[in-house]
């Protein structure tokens, strides 16, 4: 494929909700293009009909009884939050 440009990097960064400084975008574009070129070595092999492997072990998802197993640690967990109030996590206003 053609190398990625800074506009494409900006689009991917937006999808990832990740701010990139404008001056760093060309370097990321060049790195990403090189990585994708490396990755595309996979195309040298025909994988038609090969079953994709998502996971190293063939295992079924374990189920557990539908019982309460956790205690409420809200205060302890919120002690490390950037901002909380009345047991809620605070973020900038979303709805006017």
């Amino acid at each position, binding site marked *: 494929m053609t190398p990625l440009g800074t506009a494409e990097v900006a689009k991917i960064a937006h999808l990832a*909700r990740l701010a990139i400084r404008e001056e760093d975008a060309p370097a*990321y574009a060049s790195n990403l293009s090189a990585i994708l070129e490396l*990755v595309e070595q996979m195309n040298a092999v025909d994988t038609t009909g090969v079953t994709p*492997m998502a996971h*190293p*072990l063939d295992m079924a998802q374990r189920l557990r009884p539908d019982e309460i197993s956790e205690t409420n640690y809200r205060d*302890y967990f919120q002690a*490390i939050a950037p901002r909380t109030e009345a047991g809620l996590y605070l973020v900038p206003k979303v709805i006017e």
Partner: protein
Amino acid sequence: MHDKTIAQISAGLAAGEFSSEELTRALLERVEQFNPQLNAFITITAGSALAQARAADRRRQQGEAVPLTGIPIAHKDIFCTDGIRTSCGSRMLDRFIAPYNATVVEKLNAAGTVMLGKTNMDEFAMGSSNETSFYGPVRNPWDLDAVPGGSSGGSAAAVAARLTPGATGTDTGGSIRQPAALCGITGLKPTYGRVSRWGMIAYASSLDQGGPMARTAEDCALLLGAMAGFDPRDSTCVDRAVPDYVAALNQPLAGLKIGLPKEYFGEGLDRQVAQAVEAAIAEYRKLGAEPVEISLPNSQLAIPAYYVVAPAECSSNLARFDGVRYGHRCENPKDLLDLYTRSRGEGFGAEVTRRILVGTFALSAGYYDAYYLKAQQIRRLISDDFRRAFEQVDVIMGPTSPTAAFNLGEKADDPITMYLSDIYTIAVNLAGLPGLSLPVGFAGQRPVGLQLIGNYFAEDRLLNVAHRYQQVTDWHERVPAGF
């Protein structure tokens, strides 16, 4: 006292030659003395270490000690430790005080180990040189101009420099084995599912696995015995009995079939590394083993497939770092999107950013089949290569890394060159197999590691094969000058 292995310390404590508190004090002094040079620890937990040591000494007096009671260790800073900063080598978690213990930490605490501190690592375990850490690079005790490898570079350097007799590490594409090789110690990546991942900060969930790092295979056996086992809190942790790894160490190697993949001895392998590995294989022949050449024909596809699978999983796992509930939050966000993007942009370093972007791209609409699906198919081919090989041989051997430790800064600006340093280790993670690195010589002043790859859940066999070699050689006893 600081030069003893875990097995020797265990015997010394049992015989009353010294207390855990005395040993812990001595090691904490060494950490204070050498850490400014090595940067192997991010956090030193002297206060809680001494409290744990005194508790271990009391437990011993009460006759309730087990082999690891009172043994000082260090945890890679990827394992959550209740009430203690768990940074994962990132600015994102610089002020993150974990609210619970990882299962591995919990299990080692239950055995009575003493935590000296949390070791430095590549940011979110993404790196092969420990240079991507927010806390700066770790230096290799064998040569301070060299990298220790990564991502478990702090654990490897601390063990090599005799600051701790053992440490935990994690391995997603070589992060236990490669630093073990570059620092001249022994490190084991267990079979996927052998050790619980609960509380181990996720990078690529279908590849990540925690394991022990120590000077000898015997010490790794002692640590793994305490770390391994079923955990209902990790849905991928396998419910299977943990064998007595120590009891299996001394099995004879006569008739052991060793597979030497021809793809691991080709272009790109440093001549001195090849010589040390070949000498080790000759030693195995003397022990009665039978090396045979094998082929893992899809080896060259491991790195390309890994750099789709791992970034894809990382982009998904690291989505949780959003500046809302914990971790870094930017100043004065103007709206929610600004809060997310700036918190993440400021919190993550360049390598983590690269991998999140690659993963996001590979999973984005229209690209899934060409990248992620293709990589999963390649993963199957790689796994099938190993399955066929293990129909013929008991273990596979080769170099852990194509070169000995490289210089700090040498590859830092070129991600692709850096990625290639994991060329022999990555396929093992894709297949989910256990792998071990042990020291087998030097290239100049810098150590060389031999990689052993075993079949699923054959950790006992790998530790046995490594231990027998260490009974007749002394590479694992070499101490870096100045330490």
